[in-house]
């Protein structure tokens, strides 16, 4: 006789010896304990601050900072308030982090792929690079680059140059365009070109699916974007004014420049992190079983198609999560800029802390900035991972 299905009973046993009760009890104890410790620390802090006469609160943010900042994405002087100084710091952190991430990805991927080169010399150099750079503390590397950029390079008056690019103790100076409104047209052209290239790719894909005729998915879109950019340049009145640096007696005049501090942080972070990224790329490529490549070959796929359709999509799933971790590490390590005086958010907070004595607030700002970056990235990554995970049962 079949028994009719029914729902399970909901009742829980709340006796002294039940699992449910025990679980609740442990949690209450844990909450009380942690709450107690936090309360104790907070009350100690409040008491200490009262006795030492330390003011608390974020009101200092609106007071004038009273210090200058060496480099900034926007104009800043010592009369500006603290909050603006912090913004300068955050801007500088993001600037070095974003440029660093781009360069690290390029270098790390090259080195990681180089580990599989058919050329033994290339393999050896890539291996040596990875082992050397990841086994030396990044702070030490930063300090060494700073030493090289500020003491071992020639003086400004004897700056080395390749054409109009000057390198000296004063940093790197290079020609930059004189910005005018015509440049906006180039930007507009590039954006329009990107849209057109995207449309072309969609058209090419549908054509491919309908007729089986393969069209270039890379070179043609690239040419479209470049042509559109050039058209924008013509439409904008062909702005061609460049600021070319020239060597003066005591300084290099004109042009755009990068400070030695920025260069040292960038070099140190990029070379260090790229060694790790190279390992991530290498293990990602290795993670795809040999059989996948054999099956693709047995199906007659060409080398490029095998890479693009079979190996890369699988390797990327393995590569992307640890790669994001490395990007976050690079961003967090940019805090070491404080050691050589690049005005990132930690360095600014440190100065503010020493001037105002508001340790809690300044450290909270540092942590908040990094936590926001890290947590938002990891939320995005979790979403991405669950979306791109290979479905199994």
């Amino acid at each position, binding site marked *: 006789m079949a028994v009719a299905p029914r729902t399970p009973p909901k009742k829980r046993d709340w006796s002294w010896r039940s699992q449910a009760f025990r679980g609740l009890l442990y949690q209450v104890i844990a909450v009380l304990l942690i709450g107690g410790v936090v309360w104790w620390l907070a009350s100690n802090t409040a008491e200490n601050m009262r006795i030492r006469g330390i003011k608390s609160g974020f009101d200092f943010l609106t007071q004038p900072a009273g210090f200058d900042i060496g480099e900034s994405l926007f104009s800043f002087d010592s009369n500006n308030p603290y909050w603006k100084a912090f913004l300068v710091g955050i801007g500088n952190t993001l600037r070095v982090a974003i440029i660093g991430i781009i360069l690290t990805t390029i270098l790390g991927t090259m080195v990681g792929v180089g580990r599989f080169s058919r050329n033994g010399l290339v393999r050896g150099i890539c291996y040596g690079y990875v082992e050397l750079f990841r086994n030396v503390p990044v702070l030490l590397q930063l300090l060494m680059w700073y030493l090289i950029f500020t003491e071992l390079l020639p003086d400004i008056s004897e700056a080395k140059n390749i054409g109009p690019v000057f390198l000296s103790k004063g940093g790197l100076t290079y020609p930059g365009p004189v910005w005018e409104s015509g440049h906006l047209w180039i930007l507009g052209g590039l954006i329009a070109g990107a849209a057109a290239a995207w449309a072309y790719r969609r058209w090419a894909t549908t054509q*491919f*699916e*309908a*007729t*089986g*005729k*393969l069209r270039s998915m890379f070179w043609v879109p690239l040419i479209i974007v470049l042509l559109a950019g050039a058209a924008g340049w013509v439409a904008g009145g062909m702005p061609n004014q460049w600021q070319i640096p020239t060597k003066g007696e005591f300084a290099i005049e004109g042009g755009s420049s990068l400070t030695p501090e920025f260069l040292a942080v960038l070099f140190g972070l990029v070379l260090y992190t790229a060694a790790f990224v190279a390992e991530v790329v290498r293990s990602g490529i290795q993670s795809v*079983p040999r*059989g*996948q490549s*054999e*099956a*693709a*070959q*047995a*199906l*007659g*796929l*060409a080398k490029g*198609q095998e890479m693009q*359709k*079979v190996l890369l*999509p*699988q390797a990327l*799933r393995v590569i992307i999560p640890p790669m994001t971790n490395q990007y976050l590490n690079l961003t967090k390590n940019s805090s070491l800029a404080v050691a050589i005086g690049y005005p990132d958010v930690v360095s600014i907070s440190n100065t503010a802390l020493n001037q105002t004595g508001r340790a809690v607030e300044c450290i909270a700002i540092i942590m908040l900035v990094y936590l926001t970056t890290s947590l938002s990235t990891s939320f995005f990554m979790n979403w991405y991972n669950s979306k791109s995970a*290979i*479905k*199994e*049962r």
Partner: protein
Amino acid sequence: MTTQTQDNIIVFDKVNKWYGNNFHVLRDIDLNVRRGERIVICGPSGSGKSTLIRCINRLEEHQEGRLVVDGTELSDDVKAIDKIRKEVGMVFQQFNLFPHLTVLENLTLSPMYVGKVPKKEAEEKAMVQLKRVRIAEQADKYPLQLSGGQQQRVAIARALCLTPKIMLFDEPTSALDPEMIKEVLDVMVAMADQGITMICVTHEMGFAKAVADRVIFMDQGQIVEQNTPNEFFNNPQTDRSKDFLSKILGH
């Protein structure tokens, strides 16, 4: 024999292959396979069976001798290799389906990108093949969501999508449970009736008896004995094959 040459779709002529300097895996292989012939290769592990069939679509390259597949001699010539691979389908022991593509995408990938077939047509053909291996309802699932037997049937369908003249099977049932072995063998038996040339490395003696025109027994990189299944199983000629058969049929 010589009159039959143009009927031979695969010709091995004194083929030798080494791994490294000293590991001599294939030794003077001479073998002719007729169009439409169904061959089962068996032998102890390490005897070079897999290497032999992997030479046919150049997953492995031989170093000495001639190997002609459907009139094309295999050499370093890239065009020749591309041509051969379109004509030779292969099924692996570990399935080697692409886990990031759906079953249907696995089947249409090669027809679309290698065969330059429009997507719709490729999908229709793929569905025909999936029906043939009795798995059409799983088309939109991902390979790892299927059982081993289902995966192997998908792999067979994928190889068939290029309408190959030759099908190679490299121990297709060795990674499967007994129940699943049957569903895969059923598909292979059904395929055998359709005139495709099949070379199958397997130890499934029932399959060999039911389907094969010829059984080849290999040991130490050489073809020790070849015969019709009936003769081979009932009346083996060499001591080595007797010994081998007594072991695999012993229980």
